[in-house]
């Protein structure tokens, strides 16, 4: 199992920490690698992700059972598509409570799918508690902490009790010149001309490609970590 046959949930109990940007990046990374991908926007009906990626993303809701079935049955479907969930802060606890109740992680593993949570680190108590709870409730799920550089250089590793060898994915700051393009929907990091009418100015394109390479390198390293964890788990079970 690896990032390739994966479900990636971008999560934080706090709003406006960069979840949707990261969800867009992960979705476009899969497309860049030539994989089918389906993204689910659980941001309370705002539809932001779907605005940027109308062909890949759909709005989802889990407040009633049909929405729960539409989302979770799709997440575990054996359709060779990577799945990405942009989990809005209001849906954070309902999503994980439901996932725990219905045995989501176990079902995913039984189907050869690797669930991973990319958790946006922020120094508040709510987020720290939420991270600890996820670690306790979902030991089979890869929990990858993410630091958004827009919150400064400090990653708060001690607050989150992250081990020395534990990798924190970095989301670098987007320069203002890049942001005005990237934050205007629709925008894809993968489409020719980056999905903008007339394409990006060359200097902007070059800077954005450099920024993207850093992010894609982070995702490839995450992929390797998931593969390694899976291999170690297989060896332990076999011994």
């Amino acid at each position, binding site marked *: 199992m690896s990032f390739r046959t994966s479900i990636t949930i971008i999560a934080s109990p706090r709003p406006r920490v960069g979840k949707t940007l990261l969800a867009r990046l992960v979705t476009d990374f899969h497309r860049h690698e030539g994989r089918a991908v389906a993204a689910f926007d659980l941001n309370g009906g705002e539809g932001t992700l779907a605005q940027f990626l109308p062909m890949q993303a759909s709005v989802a809701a889990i407040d009633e*059972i049909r929405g729960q*079935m539409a989302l*979770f*049955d799709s997440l575990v479907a054996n359709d060779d598509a990577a799945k990405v969930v942009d989990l809005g802060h209001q849906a954070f606890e309902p999503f994980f409570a439901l996932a725990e*109740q*219905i*045995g989501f992680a176990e079902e995913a593993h039984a189907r050869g799918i690797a669930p991973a949570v990319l958790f946006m680190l922020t120094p508040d108590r709510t987020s720290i508690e939420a991270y600890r709870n996820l670690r306790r409730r979902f030991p089979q799920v890869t929990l990858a902490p993410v630091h958004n550089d827009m919150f400064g250089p400090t990653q708060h590793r001690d607050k989150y009790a992250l081990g020395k060898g534990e990798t924190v994915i970095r989301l670098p700051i987007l320069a203002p010149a890049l942001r005005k393009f990237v934050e205007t929907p629709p925008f894809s990091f993968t489409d020719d001309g980056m999905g903008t009418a007339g394409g990006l100015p060359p200097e902007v394109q070059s800077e954005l490609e450099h920024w993207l390479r850093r992010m894609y390198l982070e995702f490839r390293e995450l992929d390797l970590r998931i593969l390694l964890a899976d291999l170690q788990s297989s060896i332990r079970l076999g011994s």
Partner: protein
Amino acid sequence: MARPAVILVGADKGGVGKTTVARTLLDYFGAHQTPTRAFDTEAPRGTLKRFHPEITEVVDVTAVPDQMKIFDTLGSAAARVTVIDVRAGLLSPTLQALADIGFLESAKKGQITFAVFHILGPSIASLDEIKEAARFVGDASYFLVKNFINNTSFFDWDPATYNSYFKQIKNAEEIVIPKLNEMACEQVEVASVPYVSFVANKNGKGDAANYSFVLRGYVRHWLGQVWGEYDRVKLIDLVSPSLENNVRQVAG
């Protein structure tokens, strides 16, 4: 020789979840590898048989030939446990019939383990049924089941009144069946398979099915809560007493 166990599942009115409880019991004993058979008294077609066709027979428990089929074979049947899903409104008449044939006397003498699962209705009239049953139950295990699967509210009941009925039966214990999402409930009904098969995503033939993962998850969680209640009242110990386990160990 192992003592056979008989479990009556009954209610004073229909629609309170008798067959649902009987189904969870059959799954529970199956999961504990306790050989079980069932008799479905909703003749002619039955309601329990649809879900557990291999181990269920439709009978008329008030008819002598069917009484013989059930009770004359208790000692010889491969099944350790016999579950009888009693037609709605017939719990007391069935208990009377069992008294008439000497079954209750055999239970009192310890020759048979006997338990009653009385599924309560939401209205206060259900409590009168407890008084009726109390005449027959004696030392048998008696479980008062509040079935919230369909979000029933037992709001008519003043706790003091309820307790006064509850205390009329010596070995009475309360069991709570929690709510199950309506769509999950409905899909299991449509699938016509045991709860454990639905959870395992298997159809009636044991082949892979395509039930919703979410609904299977809800059912698994709910069934776990129900079985937790059965564990709490030590149901397996009741039908397979540890003394017999020790005897088997010594004999082995």
